[in-house]
């Protein structure tokens, strides 16, 4: 965008930074509250290939003129190119007048009225066209700002991703005057990337039919057209507008075994003001003749669809992506990976003993190995496959779990319902292999002994929808306990809590059996689970919300610590900084016994360092006679579809401290003007 005295507020780095409304010097918009003013709603594209440089757009509200983009994980640097804000109302009339004049000139140049009298059409240059499109976009931005403030403003950055940046998800936040924003996901991949032109405000209005609010210039709105043919492997970045179907031409060779995997809900798990509460993508593959080959709107239970196609014929195929009910807006951002890359669909077992070597069978497409050995499982917890197997492309939601209990693999005993004897405590790894199958485990118990039986399946990415039934081990015994769904607040991305849990005090000495089934009667080699049977193990997890704060020096920001109590743990939990950096501390950092949450104060000293500082936390409690330390995981409290709240972990916790104002230079003409 040019800076030419026009009323759009346009700032370029490298020029003098315009002070916006500040009474001399750099404005410090620090916040003593957890609630942020600076908020970002989308980043596009939402990722890039490592070792490349790309241009991204971040949309949001209250974006400062000196915004910085901060990425977690290191190795990603960004330079601000421009901040676009809707023109001020007092400048709109001037804009619209200029737009009218330009429109008339364009129409005269295209449709001269006096052509018959030999009058030449009015001149029209590429600069005129650029200016016309600029003005159209600014007018559209003004309309969009009225209707949808979260998408009103945009910041553009040049982003450089180093070669050695870890693959996978990183957080991106904006920071500057106004504090620090919420995080969004930025994904680093190892595949070449193609990015479609972004959805502009004018394009948005065309797609919603709102251009009737425009003047005669609406006929001149440019809609971008994509003509290139994509050769896999590639990641396609797109943004879906209202009613839009993005179509891509893909060159496929005969014999290729292509995986087409969408990342959409993984980028933005929850939308508060939409139903469905995320971008619910549908992909369809058409052949050269336009015949439908395959379509998918989900993968197992996950909204992001995945297709696998073994191409019999070479040709230029069409891949289409849209929302399931043809919605669209700026934050409907997606990435589609297309290629013959190895894609893991399932693993078994779904976990192993912490610290031990575990061999994991892999199933999927284009895999080089049928199994991988993990030389040492991580400490107890749930991890992404990438963290443990260093494997990027896998079924969404697929996780691997480590625990301290003795591990056992289910033995199929050649007939249904025959129990497998187990000794407690134990972690059983099983599969409901066939529809209607029932896995039965028998153990000996003592009167008064309290046991917990818990299934981990959906939380680890298995499609199984478990039920658990406890009964005495005789043919006619009625159930002692039954559970279908058990909610786990720690599983912030799970919307259907399909795993089961029973806690029960055994009434008598003797043998008991646990029946494991799928509530829908489903079964397949993919319906894997882990069944934990043991005495209660009081424990806890902690989530800290929000995951970024920006207090003023000498003040504090409020952070809410949410404690997820397990197996009856009701003690007090203390939060502390881990490897506490200079200048920061916590106060009132405890969640009292029997409470699930408390507000703690994140304090910034007067000499707290400027800019971004990454913070880690620990949570400490006494369980029995032991001091137990757990990581306190940063998270965001996100709303889905107007109704439900989820604690969704982020990659990092960031504190942003205002930078000192630049030294005052001699008076220089500003490179840009405010509207």
């Amino acid at each position: 965008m040019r800076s030419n005295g026009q009323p759009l507020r346009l700032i370029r780095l490298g020029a003098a930074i315009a002070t916006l409304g500040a009474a001399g010097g750099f404005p410090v918009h620090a916040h003593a509250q957890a609630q942020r003013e600076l908020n970002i709603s989308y980043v596009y594209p939402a990722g890039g290939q490592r070792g490349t440089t790309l241009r991204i757009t971040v949309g949001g509200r209250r974006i400062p003129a000196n915004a910085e983009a901060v990425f977690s994980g290191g190795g990603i640097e960004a330079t601000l190119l421009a901040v676009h804000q809707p023109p001020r109302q007092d400048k709109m009339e001037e804009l619209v007048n200029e737009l009218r004049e330009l429109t008339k000139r364009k129409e005269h140049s295209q449709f001269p009225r006096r052509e018959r009298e030999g009058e030449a059409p009015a001149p029209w240059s590429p600069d005129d066209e650029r200016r016309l499109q600029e003005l159209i976009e600014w007018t559209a931005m003004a309309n969009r700002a009225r209707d949808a403030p979260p998408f009103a403003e945009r910041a553009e950055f040049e982003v450089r991703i180093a070669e050695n940046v870890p693959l996978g998800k990183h957080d991106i936040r904006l920071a500057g005057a106004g504090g620090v924003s919420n995080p969004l996901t930025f994904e680093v991949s190892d595949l070449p990337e193609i990015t479609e032109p972004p959805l502009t405000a004018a394009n948005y209005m065309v797609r919603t039919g709102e251009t009737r609010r425009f003047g005669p210039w609406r006929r001149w709105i440019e809609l971008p057209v994509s003509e290139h043919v994509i050769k896999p492997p590639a990641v396609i970045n797109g943004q879906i507008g209202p009613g839009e179907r993005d179509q891509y031409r893909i060159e496929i060779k005969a014999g290729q075994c292509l995986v087409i995997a969408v990342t959409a809900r993984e980028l933005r798990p929850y939308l508060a003001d939409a139903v469905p509460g995320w971008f619910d993508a549908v992909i369809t593959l058409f052949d050269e003749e336009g015949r439908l080959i395959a379509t998918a709107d989900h993968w197992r239970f996950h909204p992001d669809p995945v297709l696998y196609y073994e191409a019999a014929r070479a040709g230029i195929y069409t891949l289409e992506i849209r929302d399931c009910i043809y919605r669209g807006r700026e934050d409907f951002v997606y990435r589609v990976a297309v290629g013959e890359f190895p894609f893991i669909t399932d693993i078994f077992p779904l976990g192993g003993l912490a610290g031990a070597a575990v061999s994991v069978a892999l199933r999927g497409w284009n895999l080089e190995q049928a199994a991988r050995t993990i030389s040492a499982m991580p400490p107890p917890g749930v991890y992404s496959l990438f963290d443990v197997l260093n494997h990027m492309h896998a079924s969404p939601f697929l996780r691997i779990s480590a625990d301290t209990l003795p591990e056992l693999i289910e033995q199929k005993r050649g007939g249904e319902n025959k129990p497998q004897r187990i000794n407690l405590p134990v972690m059983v790894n099983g599969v409901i292999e066939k529809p209607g199958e029932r896995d039965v485990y028998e153990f000996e118990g003592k009167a008064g002994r309290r046991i917990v039986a818990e299934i981990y399946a959906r939380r680890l990415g298995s499609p199984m929808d478990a039920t658990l039934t406890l009964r005495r081990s005789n043919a006619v015994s009625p159930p002692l306990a039954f559970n279908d769904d058990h909610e786990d607040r720690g599983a912030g991305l799970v919307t259907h809590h399909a795993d089961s849990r029973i806690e029960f005090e055994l009434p008598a000495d003797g043998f008991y059996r646990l029946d494991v089934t799928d509530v829908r009667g489903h079964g397949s080699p993919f319906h894997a689970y882990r069944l934990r049977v043991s005495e209660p193990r009081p424990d806890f997890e902690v989530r800290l919300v929000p995951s970024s704060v920006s207090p003023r020096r000498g003040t504090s920001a409020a952070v809410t610590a949410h404690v997820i109590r397990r197996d009856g743990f009701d003690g007090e939990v203390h939060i502390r900084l881990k490897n506490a950096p200079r200048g920061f501390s916590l106060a009132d950092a405890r969640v009292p016994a029997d409470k699930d949450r408390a507000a703690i104060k994140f304090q910034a000293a007067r000499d707290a360092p400027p800019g971004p500082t990454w913070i880690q936390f620990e949570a400490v409690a006494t369980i029995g006679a032991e001091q137990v330390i757990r990581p306190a995981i940063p998270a965001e409290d996100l709303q889905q579809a107007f109704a439900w709240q989820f604690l969704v972990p982020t990659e990092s916790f960031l504190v942003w401290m205002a930078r000192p104002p630049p030294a005052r230079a001699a008076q220089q003409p500003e490179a840009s003007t405010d509207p």
Partner: protein
Amino acid sequence: MTYTDSADAPDSTKQIADREAIPPWAAGKVAASSPYPPVHRLRPWEKTWPRRRFLANGLLGIGGLAALRWGAPLTFAVPFNPPPPRGKARTVIQVWLWGGPCHLDTFDPKPEAGNDYAGPFTQPIATNVDGIRINELLPMLAKQADQYSIIRGMTHGINGHETAAYIVQTGRPAGGRLTYPCIGAVVSLFKGYDAGYQGLIPPYIVLTQPQGRFSEAGFLGLKYKPFATGGDPAAPPFAVEGIVLPGVPRERQIRRRELLASLNTLRCALADDPLMAAADAAREQAYELILGDGGKVFDLSQEPDAVRERYGRNTFGQSCLTARRLVESGVPYVTINYGGWDTHKQHFQAMRRKLPEMDRGFSALLDDLRERGLFDTTLVWWSGEFGRTPRIQWEPPWNGGRNHYGKAFCAVLAGGGLRGGLVVGATDERGETVTERPVYPCDLLGTIYAQLGIDPDGPLPNPQGLDVRVTPDASEKVPSGGRLKELV
């Protein structure tokens, strides 16, 4: 069912003798001692062609959709012929704030709760009743507080539009075996054609669009669905579906009628056929609605400009005026579906637009009803399906919006013989919880039914012949705080 006059009590033997009027498939289901009143003897043409179907068929514009809506023949196991209810109120105007109005921003202000609750509305105004204050953008209603009563203890705890709208208008929670009819359909049943209503305008009118959130008629069937006028009463003309065709003047409608008559050779050939005679009769009634005095109730140009201005020249204001005209002509139930209250975003901007509009139209309606002597016989109730979150959602994407809130909200009742100037129930200092006198939807509806002379505890006839009551009884375990005896 109970009756206020013993002379109207049913004679159970008589109804059995009238078996000819019972649909053949239902005859076997008639009990020897049915509690239901004598059978309504069908006119011959009603046995297979209910009257309303003739109104609907073959006319300019009313045709297909209306036929579908109205064409269901009687399907009760035991035909229903209620005596005319004796109550103080004869008609109801329901002002339905579609989407859920915030109680804090209307009739239950909480300025002391601070900016996170009150937002910019920090100066509620006193009304002409000591101790009652309402939102500062409702000055006209503030001068009439002695005419209406505010129910601040409304609660049901449901936050979904469809289920909340269902429970507020039927009195029962959704999800049971039966789909209950809403109050409009019940009033249409008890005070409509089955009860001797003779008007050409259907007895249950919606201005102007049906909500679509739930089935108004429920198990009663299509016959008791409302007639939604469509069109816009603020637009000239008010293009009521099937009655007013925009762009076709009255003279042209008359010429069309004459042309149709001249082309209708079948009618000439079957001049003596009773079905044809019945069709003629229905067609004449339909034309009476379109071209005669019947449809003039929708012609707002008959009202002085000063009256139309008083209501406000907008869809809501003119809908209130239309409602007044409808009840004046005897229509038992009118719903004004007043949308735009689902303010998740830009809430206060919307309130600044809608509250003055609502204030003007609603206050004009109350004034006008009083001036015309209709106030005591017309019960007006104002409500939405729920309230809105007392705590404002400042965070994106709401940026100052309010979400759904069924735990506490308010309603307003006026006229129909009810007392005004009262407040029933109370919420806490933030409007988040009902602290005094909870009022559940069945309590509110039961109060309205009783004022109309419909026994809220009496049986509700239904096609399945099930023993259900007009409002829930104890066996249904629906929460109740008791009917609004304070207002009676």
